[in-house]
C-alpha cells in the first residue's frame, strides 16, 4: 500500500464534473445522443491521459481569467482517474444502448453518470474513488493507494497542509 500523496487540483475535477453533468443533461433534454457521445470521447481521452477530460477548459480558459480559482490539496490522483474511467465505461454502454435504440437503458445509464458526478460535485463523495480504495483493500493488483489519513474512502480530503 502506498500513502504518498500528491497535489491534486480539485477545481479542475469540479469543472470536469460540471461539464459532464451539463452536457449529459442537455443531451437528455434534447434527446441528442451525440452529446453524451462527446462527453464519452472527452472522458476516454482524459482517462488515457490520466487527467480530467475537460481539464483543457479549466487550464486554458477558466483558470487564466480567474473565473475558477485553483483548489490544490494533497490527495491521490489515481482514484480520480479510475473514477473517470469507470464513468467512461458506464457512459460507453449508455451511448451504445442509445445507438441501438434502447432509449430507456441508455438514458438511465446517462442519469447514473449524472447522479454520481453530482454526488461528487455537490457533496464531495467520489463513488469511483470509493470503489478504487475498496479494491485496494482487497489487494487487487494495480490498486495500491490508500485513502488520505483521516478521510473516509471516497470522500474529498478536507485538505492537508503538507509539503
Amino acid at each position, binding site marked *: 500500500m502506498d500513502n504518498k500523496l500528491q497535489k491534486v487540483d480539485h477545481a479542475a475535477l469540479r469543472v470536469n464534473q460540471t461539464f459532464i453533468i451539463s452536457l449529459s*443533461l442537455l443531451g437528455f433534454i434534447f434527446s441528442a445522443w451525440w452529446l453524451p457521445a462527446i462527453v464519452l470521447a472527452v472522458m476516454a481521452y482524459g482517462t488515457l491521459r490520466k487527467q480530467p477530460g475537460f481539464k483543457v477548459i479549466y487550464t486554458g480558459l477558466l483558470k487564466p481569467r480567474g473565473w475558477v480559482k*485553483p483548489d490544490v490539496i494533497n490527495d491521490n490522483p489515481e482514484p480520480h482517474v479510475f473514477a473517470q474511467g469507470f464513468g467512461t465505461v458506464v457512459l460507453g454502454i449508455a451511448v451504445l444502448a442509445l445507438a441501438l435504440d434502447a432509449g430507456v437503458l441508455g438514458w438511465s445509464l446517462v442519469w447514473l453518470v449524472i447522479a454520481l458526478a453530482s454526488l461528487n460535485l455537490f*457533496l464531495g463523495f467520489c463513488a469511483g474513488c470509493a470503489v478504487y480504495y475498496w479494491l485496494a483493500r482487497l489487494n487487487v493488483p494495480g490498486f495500491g493507494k490508500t485513502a488520505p489519513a483521516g478521510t473516509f474512502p471516497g470522500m474529498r480530503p478536507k485538505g492537508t*497542509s503538507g509539503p
Partner: protein
Amino acid sequence: MNDVLARTLLAAALIALGAAAYWAWNRWQLRRLGQARGTVLAGLENTRPGVAAVLYFTTPDCLVCKTAQKPALQRLEAEMRGGVQIVEIDATVDTAVADYWGVLSVPTTFVIDAHGQPRSINHGLTSKEKLQRQLEATFGSPAANANAAVELESGPAPAEPIKRPAGSGEKLESKS
C-alpha cells in the same frame, strides 16, 4: 417540442428529487446533532452562552475560505455587533470535531442558536446575507431574542473569531 418539454420536466423532477434527498440529509444531520439537547456540542466549548454562533470549518489550503468566506464572516460579525460569535475550526487539525459535525468539504458553516443548538448547515461558500437570514431565523424564540438584545447593548464582540487550540477536539463527549 412536446418531447423536449416532457424531458425537461422529467429532468427537473429528477433534480428536485436529488435536491430533496440533499435537504433531507441535511435535516437528518441537524436532528442528529440536536439530540444532544442541554449539552455543549464538540467545538462549542469556548463559546459565550446565550449568544448565537456560526461554526466555521476551514483548512489552511482552502483558498475560497481565505478570499471569500472569512471576509464574509468578519463583515457579519461586525454588522451584528456582538449578536453572533464566530468559531473557526481547522478541519485538518480538529479532524475528530469535523467528523463529529459531519463536515464533508470546506468551507462548511453551521448556524447555532443562542441555546447552542445547530439550526442550519451550509456546504460551500455562503454569503453574509444568507448567514444573516439564518441567524435572524434563530432569534424567533423570546429567550434567544433577549440574549441577542443583551449582547447588542453590551458592546461589540471580540474582533477575532474564536479559534480552538490545536488538537482540543479529540475529546468528543458532550459536556454538561
